[in-house]
């Protein structure tokens, strides 16, 4: 892939925890509008790689480039660069992580006010727009505890989208959900992909990966084991480890 058209690049990103290499020299280019699905066994470094992208984990080595802005992570990253980066990269977690003491609407509006400096009205208008998009406008005044897991995750997606990110990271967004609630979240993600959002999705949902993603990446031991068009990787995996892993998740 041509680097000029990639919106996100990782170069030799490495992250070690107490002598254990969680991400071991990963390089990756993601094109604008591309949807990348990431699969791999537990402990293979999927989450850590994702968290390195928005610097929730600061890599020990390597560079991260978002839309032409380089972040050399071996030095210290200034607070300004960090905020810039995080405005452009939204993240959705397995455990939703809504703020339980705020209503759904406040959850989505507060970051807009504090990070983008939007007025309360402006922020609320944008929040309602997004709630409508994820099908939850009727939940605006509810507290998260009064929402199902699937609804909470859709609110979390709206909260991230409200900052108008260019890239969205998803870390197993449906793993904590019952299958039918997972489906409503996947539907929202599918819709988001259709609007041209650049997405990196760590998931065990093979069907979603096969039908929505442009590329499937298989990770093992902190490295990218193989990657390619989802159908190709799924139908004709090049590595024995990929085959073992795929049959393990298909058998579930």
């Amino acid at each position, binding site marked *: 892939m041509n680097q000029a058209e990639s919106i996100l690049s990782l170069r030799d990103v490495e992250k070690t925890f107490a002598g254990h290499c969680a991400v071991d020299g990963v390089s990756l280019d993601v094109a604008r509008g591309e949807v990348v699905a990431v699969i791999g066994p537990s402990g293979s470094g999927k989450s850590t790689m994702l968290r390195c992208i928005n610097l*929730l984990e600061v890599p020990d080595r390597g560079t991260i480039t978002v839309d032409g802005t380089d972040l050399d992570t071996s030095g210290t990253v200034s607070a300004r660069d960090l905020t810039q980066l*995080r405005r452009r990269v*939204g993240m959705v977690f397995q455990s939703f*992580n809504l*703020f*339980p*003491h705020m209503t759904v609407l406040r959850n989505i509006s507060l*970051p807009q006010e*504090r990070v983008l400096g939007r007025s309360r009205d402006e922020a609320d208008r944008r929040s309602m727009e997004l709630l409508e998009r994820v099908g939850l406008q009727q939940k605006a005044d509810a507290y998260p505890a009064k929402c199902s897991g699937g609804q909470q995750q859709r609110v979390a997606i709206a909260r*991230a989208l409200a900052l108008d990110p260019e890239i969205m990271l998803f870390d197993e967004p449906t793993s904590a959900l019952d299958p039918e609630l997972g489906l409503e979240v996947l539907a929202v993600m599918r819709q988001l992909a259709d609007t041209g959002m650049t997405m990196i999705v760590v998931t065990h949902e093979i069907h979603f990966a096969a039908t929505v993603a442009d590329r499937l990446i298989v990770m093992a031991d902190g490295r990218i084991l193989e990657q390619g068009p989802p159908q190709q990787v799924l139908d004709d995996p090049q590595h024995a480890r990929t085959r073992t892993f795929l049959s393990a998740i298909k058998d579930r």
Partner: protein
Amino acid sequence: MKSAIFSDWAEWLPRLLDGLWVSVQVTGLSLIIGLAAGLLLALAAFARTRLLTWPAILLVEIGRGMPALVMLQLVYFGLPSVGLTLETYAAVVLALSLTTAAYTSEIIRAGLRAVPDGELEAADALGMSRGDVMRFVVIPQGLRIALPTLLGFAILIFQISSLAFSLGLPELLSQAYSIGAATFRYLDVLTLAGLLYLAVTIPAGWLVARFERRLSRHLTT
């Protein structure tokens, strides 16, 4: 005989109520000062500000380790030797504030720590500043978690304020003692004083319990 006790009680009551008012005042002031200091200490500890951590830990350990009675005596009799002489009232408030700060900083710190890490990460990932994360996410929830324990402690410090009688502060227990000394009816007057303490602490305890139930409404799934 019974009616004699009650007429004595009626006679003593105004003085005891004056004493109760002093107890409530020193408790209230100590709580305001001590909680503010406790919150600052808790935030310093939570933020792991190195400059502040060490003195903060020292203060907390001394404040919690030292019996309140010793703290009162040290402030009242000890500070003059370093050139600071305080009125009884001020000495009591200072000593109880120190004890309050030490205990409540630990209570608040535990509350702040109980806010799930995932929420802090989400706030970080949204690009919120450290200050905003504290202000909008950690402090409101941490205080809410700490509140029942803090209110319980407030009741305790009200009881502890009776130790100020040892410095001669005219609070409830001192008033009861001096009435006792004048009438030799220690048991009767102490019973009445005890009832007055209970008249504050028991309803306060109920209120705390109700409050606790109300607060946990949004937070349970």
